[in-house]
């Protein structure tokens, strides 16, 4: 187990290496000379040359990449061009709403999608199954910002049930925090729910045709016991895998959702950075999101041993 963990951790190095090269090239290839930007309007050619030297911009690509990578490994993601603040500090300031939104969406998804998938598989071929599958197709087709605005119009503006936009930190108390999280998590979760419901149904259908399920039924176990205790447990591995892979979908959605619901998280930070062409921030956010994605999927691989004791590493 330990050896496997080490091997998997080492395997993430080339993946993160590719991400690092991509992200660095982004700054390297970006139009405009950072030295000119920093120098300002009054800088002479000599000033700019000096700034270039100080920043190391006159050195070869590989040397620059090495220096940059060393800084990143130590947690230094560079300085934002626009605000002149360290990117790592800006990211830390904005990370809470994004984590809150992601976690609450994950919770909503697991609580809604898995029962839906189980139900559809149990009632396979009936109108319930067809309803769930229809929902899955619709969920895939409605982009998160369309769902988001539809929910704002219907639930916030017409029915006045929930706040329209904004974010209240969880440090102000859970019940102040909750109302602002409901719509964003539902809107963001829609695609994810569709995906997980679909894979749950597929995985459950496969398990429900097994002999041991028939045995469980025939020895008189209750329906819920068979479905959740026996079948779902054995159908769990593909579901958890898809939860991990779908995280990429979720992260893409976070950027948009935060814009729709005016949540001051990493997504907003990214969008503002694009509009200002603040490359160090774009780099930093991509690095953080990709690292999170890779690490979470690594963790998911490790959980397989708990979900299915037959899997040994």
């Amino acid at each position, binding site marked *: 187990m330990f050896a496997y963990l080490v091997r998997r951790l080492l395997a993430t190095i080339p993946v993160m290496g*590719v991400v690092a090269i991509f992200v660095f090239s982004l700054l390297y290839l970006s139009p405009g000379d950072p030295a000119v930007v920093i120098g300002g309007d009054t800088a002479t050619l000599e000033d700019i040359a000096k700034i270039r030297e100080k920043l190391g911009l006159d050195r070869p690509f590989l040397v620059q990449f090495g220096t940059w990578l060393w800084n990143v490994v130590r947690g230094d993601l560079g300085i934002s061009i626009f605000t002149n603040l360290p990117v790592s500090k800006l990211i830390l300031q904005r990370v809470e709403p994004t984590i809150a939104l992601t976690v609450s969406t994950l919770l909503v998804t697991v609580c809604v999608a898995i029962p839906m998938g189980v139900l559809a598989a149990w009632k396979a071929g009936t109108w319930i199954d067809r309803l769930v599958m229809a929902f899955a197709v619709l969920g895939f087709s409605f982009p998160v910002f369309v769902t988001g605005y539809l929910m704002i119009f219907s639930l916030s503006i017409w029915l006045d049930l929930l706040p329209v936009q904004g974010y209240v930190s969880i440090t102000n108390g859970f019940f102040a925090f909750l109302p602002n999280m409901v719509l964003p998590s539902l809107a963001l979760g829609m695609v994810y729910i569709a995906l997980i419901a679909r894979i749950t149904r597929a995985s459950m259908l496969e398990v429900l045709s097994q002999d041991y399920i028939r045995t469980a039924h025939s020895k008189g176990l209750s329906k819920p016991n068979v479905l959740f205790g026996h079948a779902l447990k054995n159908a769990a591995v593909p579901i958890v895998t898809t939860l991990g892979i779908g995280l990429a979908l979720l992260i893409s959605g976070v950027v948009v959702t935060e814009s729709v619901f005016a949540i001051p998280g990493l997504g907003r930070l*990214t969008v503002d950075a694009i509009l200002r062409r603040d490359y160090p921030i774009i780099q930093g956010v991509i690095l953080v999101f990709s690292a999170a994605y890779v690490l979470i999927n690594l963790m998911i691989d490790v959980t397989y041993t708990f979900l299915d004791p037959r899997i040994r590493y």
Partner: protein
Amino acid sequence: MAVTALDDATDIGASRPVTIREIVRRHPTVVIGSGLLLALVLMAIFAPYLGTVDPQALSPIRRLRGPSEQYWFGTDMLGRDVYSRVVYGARISLVVGLSVALLSSAIGLAIGLVSGFNRPVDAVVMRIMDGMMSIPAVLLAIALMALTKASIENVIFAITIAEVPRVSRLVRGVVLSLREQPFVEAARATGTRSWRIVVRHILPNTLAPLIVQGTYICAAAIITEAILSFLGAGTPPNIPSWGNIMAEGRSLFQVAAYIILFPGMFLSITVLAVNLVGDGLRDALDPRLARRM
């Protein structure tokens, strides 16, 4: 031999003529999907003849009028006709969706074939693809858009790059499993050259999953274009695309909801239509996968 086999096949087909009604009853979703898609394509092509005006024509006096008989979908903050903008916007979404699907399928097919047949190349290429896939597609496209100037070509280019890793992984997987199949081994045993095996035996078998994947990529690309434009990193603002129209309506959504709702509705219907066609193609071309999903 081949001729008789073909004749047999047509005989079987001819013995039970399939009526249109039967097709509709058996695959209702595909029929609805392709019908919707056809309507949208026609709408995009004939946009100038559908009662539209110049989608860019400003008319500040008539700004922010709600939907009415004269302005079906209302007017935006610059007095432009939202209906005309939405109808013309279909062009962008469909062109981007189709181009990305074709381009990324072609590039992904090439990479996947080479990588599935050449181990050293495979090791390097798949690490690169893994790295690219760990960057969420929208972020990858955003980053690429930040490097270049806003234009439709660049949007297509950026989304294609974000989608290529998925296609090449799919094709590589198919190639790897096909390589072990008896018919490929037989071909190799009879001394067929590698390129001939690829062209005659491997390539035709990758097409079915590739076409299915292509439609899903088309749907994803339409959404990604709208997201990029909505965030201000996509199609230039002087071209009416659904994402752009929604971005412009964003600050006004409490007073003029229709500016966001109409393009949003068309966007969702288009993606739905493409997805329905994709599901239908999957059921028809890849029955094994269809049973699993």
